[in-house]
């Protein structure tokens, strides 16, 4: 029992997330009706009044100004948002004002006509193409919305309704909106009553559809629509009821039905997809829409190929998984795929072929039924489209190349000339072979049309010149008819085969190019770490691949979007619209050119979606608008955006990890520092306090020499403290990355001279020799910092070697710059300690009797590393230690 009740953690997480989102989201209530005139708006307003009376903050965002007295009466006493006046072709029209609603933020907003389309070319321009998008934005902003919709406006029922009424509805809403609505109230009115209301003039009909009214409001239509509306509502209730027990014991996913809808790019496909959606919804099944690219399909024009992608889009928008497969035979490919995915039912359209053609070739549906014995195969009847979109003619999309036809005729001419030479010596059978060869060549090189022409010309020439009676078109011997037929068929077969291969190569080539573009960018992105570089790479690749301007917009610490590469200084350069980008970033949906939101913008804005939030926005302004709007290009662009988002997310995570590491290290440093300071600062402080109090106390008698000695020790200890504090500060500045190198050309002589001048006192008991060749090149370094390195190394040498030790400073030019060494002939480094010497708070073996917190060498390393080199420590073979580092002799990049 416990096992069956255990739920998949991912599923649980998804449910929790969904609930979290829903909690913030406003609630959508839809007043649903079978047709206009059933009283949706009336019921909605009545409900609004009731809610108002209960003290709910209800505001009317928009109600169609029908001028109906009853409706007007209901509006009285309700708060109404002012309408937005949109000018379009000289006419001003009231529209819903989204921004006003967002600003007012009521708890419930009433907006009529969920399926309304905004006037895209109006002034001011709307943000979204459709009202349901406006409403989605309101819901996201936490505002609950009540709206109305008719059954004919549901996307998946669109064709069905068109079939019933003969009127195709242009304004539709995605089924998702309806299915995800929190509440749907069906406003039902028997057809007779509706007709009565219609005739008494109580139903408002916009004038533009007045002609359709006659056709539409017939009783059989109304009955069918009412039935549809009732059923759709019942489906919803059913789905809700199903979802409820699923919360406690989920069905094993294997037991679920899985539908595979196979589509070809014809006018039936759209209907097939909508049907599939209805099937899947009715049976609570998973469904996928599959398109197979067969060689035959590859020959279709671009229009058909684009239609295929649009169909897949529609399927996606209806909630299907979409897949594109390729293989030689559609049926075989589908069955193989169905097998791997555990499909239970395959849905295909009925074949279009009619008459004798059907006898020659088996249709995909027949093949599926024959081979896919283990599946239920549903073959959906064909239906002639109501108002089919103008079909792109296959031939039209390719221009006819006349030169090829002339070439075909030339081939026939050559064949005839050769045949004429052969005629006296060979039999007719062999002469036919010459023509066959010619037809083959034409088929291979010139395509199907010219090949057929060539075959026909060949047959004609053969008949005319060589078959008795010669020089007439008459054929005395019937057997030559066979020759003609075979020659024609050979030519056509070869030409078809070649055309198939060519088309396949072309498509494969295009696909490979797309993959190559994507691969090129992914590979470069993978090798890039910083956000700025990522943006650079992305912008370059997108610009090249889509011949467009591109920009990557990322939020800064304050959440403000800005161009990751800095705002362009050139006024002619692409300046993305930050307000559109902001919207895209906040809503995680694309906007601008080619989308439903702000389509008038010159650029398209795509969200860069990370796993849990939008990371930024990719803006693309194509040079050629049309090109980027091709579905294939859109798909590719989205994939690009996905890749960029992935890379950015990776870079962000790496940054965060690095920051965490630095924070931990800084914390560690701070702790060690505190411990160290208590010792290293207190000792000199004790001396200073002791000596100065002795000096200032009048009770203590001191002679001049003692006073001088005490004062001297105060100075020495004060300097020691000052050094320590400077060291700590320096190191802190390096650790926090605050130090900026101020590089300049310096000579080693000068740097060493300065260091020796500064260390002076500390080296009194040691012998220092400087051995620099006269022709050392200048180095490009930060002089104060490198002087500090030299000082620290010299002081270190003096501190850790006995008095009288020799210290030698040498330098020599090498391939990577000037190598500076500081050698001593002291006891050398303790074994195995060399690398750790440079860690913070590390000291050599003689711990305790030498001052300093062990920061000197750590600072040296930090400084030299900031210059791009490193400090090394080793024991010299001749005895003693050697500290060395290399300085850059290449200048600044010009």
């Amino acid at each position, binding site marked *: 029992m416990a096992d069956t009740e255990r739920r998949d953690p991912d599923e649980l997480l998804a449910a929790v997330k969904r609930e979290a989102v829903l909690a913030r989201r406003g609630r959508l209530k839809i007043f649903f009706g079978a047709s206009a005139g059933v009283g949706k708006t009336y019921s909605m307003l009545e409900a609004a009044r009731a809610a108002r009376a209960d003290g709910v903050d209800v505001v009317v965002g928009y109600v169609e100004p029908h001028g109906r007295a009853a409706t007007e009466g209901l509006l009285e006493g309700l708060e109404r948002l002012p309408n937005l006046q949109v000018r379009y072709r000289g006419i001003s029209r009231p529209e819903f004002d989204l921004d006003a609603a967002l600003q007012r933020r009521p708890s419930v907003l009433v907006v009529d006509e969920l399926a309304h389309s905004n006037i895209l070319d109006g002034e001011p321009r709307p943000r979204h193409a459709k009202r349901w998008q406006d409403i989605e934005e309101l819901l996201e902003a936490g505002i609950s919305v009540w709206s109305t919709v008719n059954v004919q406006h549901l996307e998946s029922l669109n064709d069905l309704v068109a079939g019933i009424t003969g009127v195709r509805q242009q304004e539709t809403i995605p089924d998702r909106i309806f299915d995800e609505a929190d509440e749907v109230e069906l406003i039902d009115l028997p057809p007779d009553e509706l007709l009565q209301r219609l005739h008494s003039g109580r139903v408002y009909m916009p004038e533009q559809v007045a002609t359709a009214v006659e056709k539409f409001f017939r009783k059989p239509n109304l009955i069918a629509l009412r039935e549809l509306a009732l059923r759709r509502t019942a489906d919803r209730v059913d789905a809700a009821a199903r979802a409820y027990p699923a919360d406690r014991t989920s069905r094993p996913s294997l037991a679920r039905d899985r539908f595979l809808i196979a589509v070809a790019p014809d006018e039936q496909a759209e209907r097939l997809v909508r049907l599939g959606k209805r099937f899947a919804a009715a049976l609570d099944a998973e469904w996928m829409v599959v398109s197979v690219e067969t060689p035959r399909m590859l020959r279709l024009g671009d229009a058909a190929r684009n239609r295929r992608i649009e169909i897949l889009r529609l399927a996606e928008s209806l909630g299907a998984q979409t897949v594109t497969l390729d293989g030689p035979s559609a049926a075989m490919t589908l069955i193989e795929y169905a097998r791997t995915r555990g499909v239970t039912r395959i849905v295909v359209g009925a074949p279009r072929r009619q008459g004798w053609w059907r006898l020659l070739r088996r249709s995909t549906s027949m093949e599926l039924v024959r081979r896919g014995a283990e599946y239920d195969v549903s073959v959906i009847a064909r239906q002639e489209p109501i108002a089919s979109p103008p079909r792109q003619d296959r031939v039209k999309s390719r221009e006819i190349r006349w030169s090829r036809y002339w070439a075909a005729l030339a081939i026939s001419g050559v064949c005839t000339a050769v045949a004429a030479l052969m005629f006296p010596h060979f039999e007719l059978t062999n002469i036919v072979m010459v023509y066959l060869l010619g037809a083959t060549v034409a088929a291979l090189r010139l395509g199907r049309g010219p090949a057929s022409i060539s075959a026909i010309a060949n047959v004609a020439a053969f008949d005319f010149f060589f078959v008795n009676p010669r020089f007439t078109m008459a054929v005395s011997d019937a057997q030559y008819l066979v020759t003609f037929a075979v020659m024609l068929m050979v030519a056509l077969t070869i030409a078809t085969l070649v055309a198939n291969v060519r088309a396949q190569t072309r498509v494969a080539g295009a696909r490979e190019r797309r993959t190559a573009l994507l691969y090129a960018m992914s590979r470069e992105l993978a090798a890039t770490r910083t956000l700025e570089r990522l943006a650079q790479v992305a912008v370059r690749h997108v610009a090249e691949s889509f011949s467009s301007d591109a920009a990557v917009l990322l939020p800064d610490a304050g959440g403000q979007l800005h161009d990751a590469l800095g705002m362009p200084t050139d006024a002619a350069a692409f300046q993305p619209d930050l307000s559109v980008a902001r919207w895209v970033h906040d809503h995680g949906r694309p906007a601008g050119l080619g989308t439903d939101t702000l389509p008038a913008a010159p650029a398209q804005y795509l969200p860069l979606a990370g796993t849990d939030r939008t990371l930024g926005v990719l803006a693309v302004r194509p040079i050629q608008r049309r090109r980027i709007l091709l579905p294939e290009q859109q798909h590719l662009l989205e994939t690009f955006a996905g890749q960029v988002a992935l890379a950015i997310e990776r870079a962000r995570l790496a940054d965060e990890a690095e920051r965490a590491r630095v924070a931990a290290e800084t914390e560690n440093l701070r702790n060690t520092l505190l411990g160290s300071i208590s010792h290293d600062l207190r000792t000199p402080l004790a001396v200073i306090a002791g000596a100065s109090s002795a000096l200032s106390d009048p009770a203590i008698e001191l002679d001049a020499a003692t006073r001088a000695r005490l004062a001297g020790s105060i*100075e020495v200890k*004060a*300097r020691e403290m*000052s050094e320590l504090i*400077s060291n700590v*500060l*320096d190191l802190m500045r390096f650790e926090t990355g605050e130090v900026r190198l*101020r590089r*300049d*050309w*310096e*000579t080693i*002589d*000068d*740097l*060493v*001279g*300065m260091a*020796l*001048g500064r260390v002076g006192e500390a080296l009194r008991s040691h012998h220092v020799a*400087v051995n*620099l060749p006269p022709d050392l090149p*200048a180095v490009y370094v*930060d*002089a*104060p910092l490198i*002087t500090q390195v030299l000082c620290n190394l010299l002081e270190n040498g003096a501190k850790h070697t006995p008095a009288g030790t020799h210290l030698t400073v040498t330098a020599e030019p090498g391939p990577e710059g000037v190598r500076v060494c500081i050698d001593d002939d002291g006891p050398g480094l303790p074994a195995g300690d060399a690398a750790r010497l440079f860690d913070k708070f590390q000291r050599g073996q003689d711990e305790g009797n030498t001052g300093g917190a062990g920061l000197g060498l750590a600072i040296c390393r930090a400084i030299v590393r900031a210059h791009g080199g490193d400090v090394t420590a080793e024991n010299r073979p001749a005895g003693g230690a050697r500290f060395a580092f290399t300085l850059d002799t290449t200048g600044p990049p010009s």
Partner: protein
Amino acid sequence: MTRAMFMILVVEDDEVLGGVLATLLEASGYRCERAATGERAIIEARSHRPDLVLVDLGLPDRDGTQVIRAIRAFSPVPIVVLSARTLEAEKIRALDAGADDYVMKPFSSPELLARVRAALRRNVRSDGALPVLQLGTVSIDLAKRTATGADGPLHLTPLEYRVLECLARNVGMIVTQKDLITQAWGPERAADSRGLRSYIKMLRQKLEPDPGRPRYLVTEAGVGYRLCV
């Protein structure tokens, strides 16, 4: 007493340090006025007409460089800055604002007094007459452009003379790298620090007893050069 009582304005907000500075200066024969804020400093500089101003860069009410600029607007008085080590950029900013020299904190009394003397000397000798420099065994007459070492006459190129002359005019005080290049080569070569380095190196070879540890031509890392006599 051979020198007139020079008056020095000490601008320092730390009471104790201000007191120490005043004691030190008064013990060395100068008169002292003190100001604890930038605003006070500007007023004092106007009313007392000091011979030298000693300014701490970290003041409570305003940035030390603002004070320098304000004083420079009405007076050519020598200004010496007190500044913490390692902040080269801050020093250069102060020098560009019109300061003549700086002393690093923590400083020793002899060091501070030497800087004060050098700054006062420059003020006295503002007539532009070029001195005869005596650097150890080498003596250089900048007006006549001749130099003699222990082993006889030394040859200096005209550019070397110009560099030396620029340093000699501010003897004992810092001259920024930028000023040095501008005055010796002209403003269009201001970025060429490499050329300057090699001239300094050659000058040291000719003038210094131990060019590896310069005593007279001293480099102030990241800021400029100082001629110490």
